[in-house]
């Protein structure tokens, strides 16, 4: 019956898909508003927030450090090959330092940290909360006078919101350091001049915009991880799907929001 309808009227399928997507967006928005409203309403579970902050912040440091280190290094290499094609040593130095600094602080550190945390933390949150959903542990929370949003979701979102900027700040330093290492030891640029040039190029907005992006990405990653897990159904397969969706949706949203935020900060 339904196959025939699809064959007869493809508009029906498109309409159903559109309605489904709109419903999901609406549901996600309500979920977000509900969660945010619990940020300030007591009781606030400080211990849980602390534990999540350690998980999101501290334990993501190696991953974020490695990604930003090698990104900074490769950018130094790339921008030097671009510069040496016709220019003086000074011009090459100026180009390497400024490209490394801008690329790392504005784009690479926040975006890569966001994507890494989406894979590491967003997936884990979706899987954990999803399993709790399908084994009725979330319902059990309700019967033990504990609001599951407050207990499970809020600490995670707060951790994402606050810890990603922290990670990105560290990532900025490591990334720029990676550029320095390649610039000085591989490309034989003057170390003192490299540091001086980097300081001269550095602007507050470069760092600040990166940190704002990081906070937004941290919010998006944890919100989607929690949302997908919270609304998962159908056993192991459902939890698997929730985990995939959380990572994919977060990654896409990070890239879209990254463009919009860049436009907001630096758009002409």
């Amino acid at each position, binding site marked *: 019956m339904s196959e025939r309808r699809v064959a007869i009227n493809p508009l029906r399928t498109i309409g159903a898909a559109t309605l489904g997507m709109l419903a999901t967006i609406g549901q996600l928005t309500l979920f977000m508003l509900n969660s945010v409203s619990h940020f300030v309403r007591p009781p606030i579970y400080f211990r849980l927030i602390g534990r999540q902050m350690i998980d999101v912040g501290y334990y993501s440091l190696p991953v974020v450090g490695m990604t930003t280190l090698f990104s900074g290094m490769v950018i130094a290499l790339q921008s030097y090959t671009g510069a040496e094609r016709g220019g003086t040593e000074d011009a090459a130095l100026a180009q390497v330092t400024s490209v490394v600094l801008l690329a790392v602080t504005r784009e690479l550190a926040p975006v890569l940290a966001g994507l890494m945390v989406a894979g590491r933390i967003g997936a884990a949150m979706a899987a954990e909360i999803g399993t709790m959903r399908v084994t009725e542990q979330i*319902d059990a929370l309700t019967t033990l006078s504990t609001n599951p949003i407050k207990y499970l979701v809020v600490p995670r979102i707060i951790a994402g919101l606050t810890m990603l900027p922290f990670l990105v700040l560290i990532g900025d330093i490591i990334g720029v350091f990676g550029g320095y290492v390649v610039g000085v030891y591989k490309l034989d640029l003057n170390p003192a001049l490299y540091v001086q040039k980097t300081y001269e190029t550095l602007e507050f907005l470069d760092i600040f915009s990166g940190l704002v992006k990081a906070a937004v990405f941290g919010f998006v990653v944890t919100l989607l991880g929690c949302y997908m897990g919270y609304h998962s159904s159908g056993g192991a397969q459902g939890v698997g799907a929730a985990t995939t969706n959380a990572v994919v949706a977060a990654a896409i949203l990070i890239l879209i929001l990254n463009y919009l935020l860049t436009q907001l900060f630096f758009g002409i």
Partner: protein
Amino acid sequence: MNDTPPKIRLKNLHKRFGEKVVLNGLNLDVGKGESVVIMGGSGSGKSVSLKCLLGLLTPDQGQIEIDGASILGISEDDRDQINRKFGMLFQHAALFDSMTVLDNVTFGLIRGKGLMTSDAERVAYEKLEQVGLDRSFGPRMPAELSGGQRKRVGLARAVALEPEIILFDEPTTGLDPVMGDTINELIVKCTRDLGATTLTITHDMASARVIADRIAMLYQGKIIWAGPTDQVDASGDPRVDQFIHGRAEGPIKMEVRRL
């Protein structure tokens, strides 16, 4: 006493998911201190009615009253207050698998009742002992327990808060008959001790006969028969007879459904 409202009143509940009607005008009163068992086959709407009662689902139509006051459409804070009256034993116990047995049982005591950890632990060990689990179970993780032990921890966790109403979702499912009967007896003992009102859903007749003061039979989203446990064999309703004797042939035609 007749003018006191029933502890739980489900009035004309309707709930549908898409085109599937799950509850179709369910009516049920449960008196204070009474133990009522809702029997019904798979997909008859048993679980949905419990979820409506707990506020996890909202019925499309109808009323749910606790102590005479409607609990539909109330604020979230009021709902939290109402939920304090409830305890529940879930079908697969739904223990928090990231916590030890002891932390599971103290969870509600510390967060819900605001007990000090030491007091909560004392109560928890008391309740664990009541369900036949000694102190050595305290530090164990739920994954290390058997099905029957998990159910017992779940029961201890549910009764630890001394709720006024306790809900049981298929308490004997997945247990061997002896363990099932042990759980049944523990349920009777624990709830009688508390004087709690209980509502159980099950399809296990043996369990229903032990637990229930009154049995209600749910079929196609409606209560088709309700009466004292000792009259269930003389209900005069062929559908009830078919169910309690577990016959495939009869007026209840099982839809063969995809699980």
